[in-house]
């Protein structure tokens, strides 16, 4: 028994050692986040928003899983329509208390592209910790800003999984042979993803602009209500272009340019992977290779980068904040409400309990 077992263990070990990424095996490479008492302050103070992000994680994960495992486009459209309904009528309405274990939702995708999952996870940790830094009322604004810069430093220590702190060219997202396939084939689900990204970067604004906890709370509730508004008449009511952090969250970008660039790179990569998975021009056997090539390109800080000045202007060239879901500040009653669609805006305190609108059929190309 002992000898057989040792031989088996050795074979298992050798199998693991010799497996290389090129053969479909990745290292786990998980790392704990930076500790501090500020962690979880956002969840504790603003659970209505923090829990939504848990549902957002499900939305991202299930999208990739369906696109990868349902290569037939008609069946994929049907599967995504079901997931959209589940998300907008159930999971977003009653989001999980804690983060969703994405491997459970996207098991095939996680096996295909673990490196991509690691990069997204690490960036999402930065997202969450920056909310926490702002939500911790024990910190002064200056202390929060200092902490956020240090958190960004820490994020960037992992060069193997960090998105760069310089803005990468939009051509990487929009001008590749697989580009824009997903948004054209599935505009409603794409709009939902962009609405997620609008809220994820936009929530920094009320946390910065709010002078008191109650002002911050009201601003966050108004932003969440605006998010629900985007789902009223999809896809017309959704962002029409990818929300850019500098445009949607100018206060945050002014203070933390590096983190803002990281988020835009992250969100571009989200869209790129959707395109690669959805594109028939990328053979199924090549999906992993193409995704990993895109990841490598995004980790490279020397190629296809924009200047910060050009990046700050991108939002204007793309149609401005109105095309990206609208401004986050100014949504509260009594404040100036920018309203790109001229429609009714729900009161913040009722928005979370209102039933989302019925699903429109996905437009097929």
């Amino acid at each position, binding site marked *: *028994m*002992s000898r057989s*077992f*040792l031989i*088996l*263990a050795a074979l*298992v*070990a050798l*199998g*693991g*050692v010799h*497996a290389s990424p090129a*053969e*479909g*095996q*990745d*290292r*786990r*490479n*998980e*790392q*704990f*986040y*930076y*500790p*501090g*008492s500020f*962690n*979880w302050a956002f*969840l504790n103070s603003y659970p209505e928003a923090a829990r939504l992000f848990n549902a957002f994680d*499900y939305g991202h994960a299930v999208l990739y899983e369906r696109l990868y495992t349902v290569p037939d486009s008609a069946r994929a459209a049907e599967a995504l329509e079901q997931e959209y309904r589940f998300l907008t009528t159930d*999971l977003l309405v009653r989001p*999980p*208390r*804690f*983060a*969703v*274990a994405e*491997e*459970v*939702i996207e*098991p095939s995708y*996680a*096996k*295909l592209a*673990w490196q991509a999952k690691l990069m997204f996870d690490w960036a999402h940790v930065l997202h969450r910790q920056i909310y926490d830094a702002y939500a911790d009322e024990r910190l002064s604004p200056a202390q929060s800003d200092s*902490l956020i810069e*240090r*958190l960004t*430093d*820490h994020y960037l*220590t992992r060069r193997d999984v960090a998105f760069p702190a310089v803005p990468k060219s939009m051509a990487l997202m929009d001008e590749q042979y697989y580009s824009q396939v997903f948004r054209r084939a599935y505009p409603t689900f794409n709009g939902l993803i962009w609405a997620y990204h609008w809220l994820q970067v936009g929530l920094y604004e009320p946390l910065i602009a709010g002078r008191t906890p109650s002002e911050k709370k009201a601003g966050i509730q108004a932003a969440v209500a605006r998010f629900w508004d985007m789902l009223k008449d999809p896809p017309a009511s959704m962002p029409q272009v990818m929300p850019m952090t500098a445009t949607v969250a100018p206060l945050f970008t002014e203070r933390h340019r590096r983190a803002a660039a990281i988020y835009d790179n992250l969100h571009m990569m989200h869209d790129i992977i959707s395109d690669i998975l959805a594109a028939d021009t990328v053979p199924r056997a090549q999906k992993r290779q193409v995704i990993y090539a895109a990841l490598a390109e995004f980790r490279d800080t020397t190629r296809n980068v924009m200047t910060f000045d050009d990046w700050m202007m991108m939002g204007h060239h793309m149609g401005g904040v109105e095309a990206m879901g609208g401004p986050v500040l100014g949504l509260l009653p009594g404040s100036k409400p920018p309203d790109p669609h001229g429609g009714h805006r729900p009161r913040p305190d009722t928005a979370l309990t209102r039933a989302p609108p019925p699903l429109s059929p996905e437009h097929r190309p």
Partner: protein
Amino acid sequence: MRRVTDGVVLALALSALAAPRAVVAQIDYRNLDDDRPTRVEDAYPVERFAFEFLVPYAFERERSGTAIHASILELAYGLLPNAHVGFKAPLAATRQAGMTDWGLSGLKAFALYNFNTEGALLPALSLRADAVVPVGSLGGDETQLAVKALATRSWGRARLHLNGAVRLTPDAAAAVVEALERWWAGAALDRTFFRQSVLLVGEVTMGRAIAAAALEVNGGLGLRWQWRPTTVFDVGIARRLKRNVGPDYALTLGISSAFAIAALMPNDLGR
């Protein structure tokens, strides 16, 4: 030999359970640690730079009437990428024929190395080494060494874990708890309930304590629940599946908490 009541031991164990306050941890209800609550564990290590502190209580009643209470304090640390090290300090009390012995049941050190995350072909694979030093009144007579191979494979919300271990050192008087068996193997199947942050797990294990011992086959069920962002609660029950060998029943419950120390991380922010 010291005589104490089971109630005192239980009170000590419960007070230990209440002691830790989570500092900062991650959401790790899916990290299946050995004995938390099943013997079979998953093939993934603690994250790099993470500490995981576990405070369990366990009770086991043997067919012979012997009762064993134990609290096996454990600390693991993600020392290297894809590897963790740790130690266990088992406090145990045995009660038999009205007499209770209690004390430290050896000290265990362990290291786990994970070769790969699960891919399209291979499951996640790891090797683990354990060493038990005979410290304490219930700690046995000899230092013992063992190695274990671990594999984890997932299918959506379900995962299958296979563990197999063999002791490399000769049979000797063993520690009362956390002894290294001659060999054992086990399989566990778990299912994740992601909205509730709950993991349900069931297992079957078999093994021999020493070469001449009867084959022991046990079954177990357990649950892990993300209690707070920083804390996981677990509970489990096990029972022998052969008529004459193994526990009549075994119960366990525990709390685990993960945290990190800034000074040990790269680019320390505590500057």
